[in-house]
């Protein structure tokens, strides 16, 4: 099997434009050294980075301009690439296997 960079990150519903935009902005802030890929299909928006994708509550609140608990993204989180780990202050999407 060829090794290629696996992209990970959230797949967001296209129903809440402000949250989707804020998540894109926050993920760009939280993953400064990589290109954030945004694939907008209308009904869903795939936001991914190579290998590991971090989203912090602080960046999301900054981008959104209001306070928010991370679990409140769920109504717009329709899926994700990679595995997902949810903490109090951050969410990480990641994959460990390299081949």
């Amino acid at each position, binding site marked *: 099997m060829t090794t290629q960079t696996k992209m990970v990150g959230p797949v967001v519903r296209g129903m809440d434009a402000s949250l989707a935009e804020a998540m894109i902005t926050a993920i760009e802030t939280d993953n400064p050294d990589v290109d954030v890929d945004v694939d907008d299909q*209308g009904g869903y928006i795939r936001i991914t980075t190579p290998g590991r994708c971090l989203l912090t509550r602080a960046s999301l609140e900054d981008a959104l301009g209001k306070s928010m608990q991370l679990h*409140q993204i769920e109504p717009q989180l329709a899926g994700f690439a990679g595995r997902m780990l949810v903490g109090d202050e951050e969410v990480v999407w990641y994959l460990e296997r390299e081949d």
Partner: protein
Amino acid sequence: MPRLPRSEWYDLTRDMNWDLSYITEDEAFPPQLSNSFGVPAHDWWAWDEPYKITYSEYVHNQAGKDAGVYSVNNVLNRSDIWDNLEPGWRAAVIAHYGAIAVAEYQAGIGEARMARFGRAAAWRNMATFGTLDETRHGQLQTYIPYQALAKEPKFDWAHKAYHTNEWGVIAARHLFDDMFLANDAVSMAIQLTFTFETGFTNLQFLGMAADAMKAGDFDFGALISSIQTDEARHAQQGEPTIKVLTKAGKADVAQDLLDRMFWRAWKLFALLTGFSMDYYTPLENRTHSFKEFMDEFINKQFIDQFRDFGLEKPWYWDQLLNEMNWTHHAYHLGVYFWRPTVWWNPVAGVGPAEREWLEEKYPGWNASFGKYWDTMGQNVRDGHPELTLPETFPVVCNSCQLPVCTPAGYAAGYLESPLPYVVEYNGRKYTFCSEPCKWVFEMQPETFAGHLSIIDRLLSGWIQPPDIPGALAYMGLSPEECGVDGTDYDWAGPVPPATKSA
């Protein structure tokens, strides 16, 4: 008032595990309902969900989700959006509700089994949310078509379908009984929540949501993508279950459960999502082909996930890649030809522009599948639409319960033989559409051997009279309910007026 971070109290409130003393483990967790696969009771307590949520957070989120879906529905229900949608899109939506709505309630029964027989408190907690999720999905997907009945009588099948012996429903029931209604909690965590929900539901609930927004069906797009946000959470019961099995040296058990259900799920989605995306969705609204969605959600996203747990691609991977080129084209052709046997009005979806698109997405389509449509189109233009309708029955696979399409796969150059696969078991001959379907049966012949396919029922005398009208009646389809060409043969070009329905 300062609040403790959730992580500092979450495990304490969740982990109500205890040692049994009054009864045995098998009495509390009968293997038929919860197969431990030999993993000791305490090892299951390491089960830890990656996607954590508390009850109060759950209720808050779900109330918001429902408010969103119902408010969109409330606004749009007063509009004429439904009447203005293309016939193909309407067919896709009507097919969806019949195939999915009541199955959601059944999935709720499956989740409830895990909420009781899951082998760790954390798991039972997640499955309790899953039970509520699936109940919500059943309610939404029966309510929304129900309140639109005045506009579309065929929405009756959202509730009716699973109470009939319509052939597609027999296939869906055969699959879902295996996957959750008759499955044990541990197998279900891998087969329902991981294989089916982490993998395949994305195709129908997100892929179709993208198409819905482009087709202007915001009601349906909001609904199915909202449902998928529940799935994304409760599907996470798979990962910790695989981890516990793998740590106990039982990765082969997880791999086997995945392999068996992955193929079965593929067949159902090749039918339902295949024709919905590549033929029913109006050309200008298509975001991707079915094969491209499979590549995105299954061949990349899902494969990456399960390989990360140490599992590997199923042994029949090459067959899957092969079938992705042709199987759903054959299914669509069959559904169109046998259209009186379905509860929606299939569209052909093969006008000149559509054929160009199909040829681009599936090189060789015109020279293979296109030829059948050439003949049907000619028959319609010659004033003989009856020649595009069935007088006999197809052969049905004794595993997936869908028509055996090996001759079409052979004619299109994808198979080496047009013959089906055959197995003799306890003096009976069983027929299969593919090597993996035969393998699924052979892994558990005692489970499947007693089931009669729709064709077995015809040959056994269950269906009387044993002809097309008798079969339609057996399938619960009154003459008014039987599917007809959704565009009144517009796809075939200029046709004699007598061909058109009144």
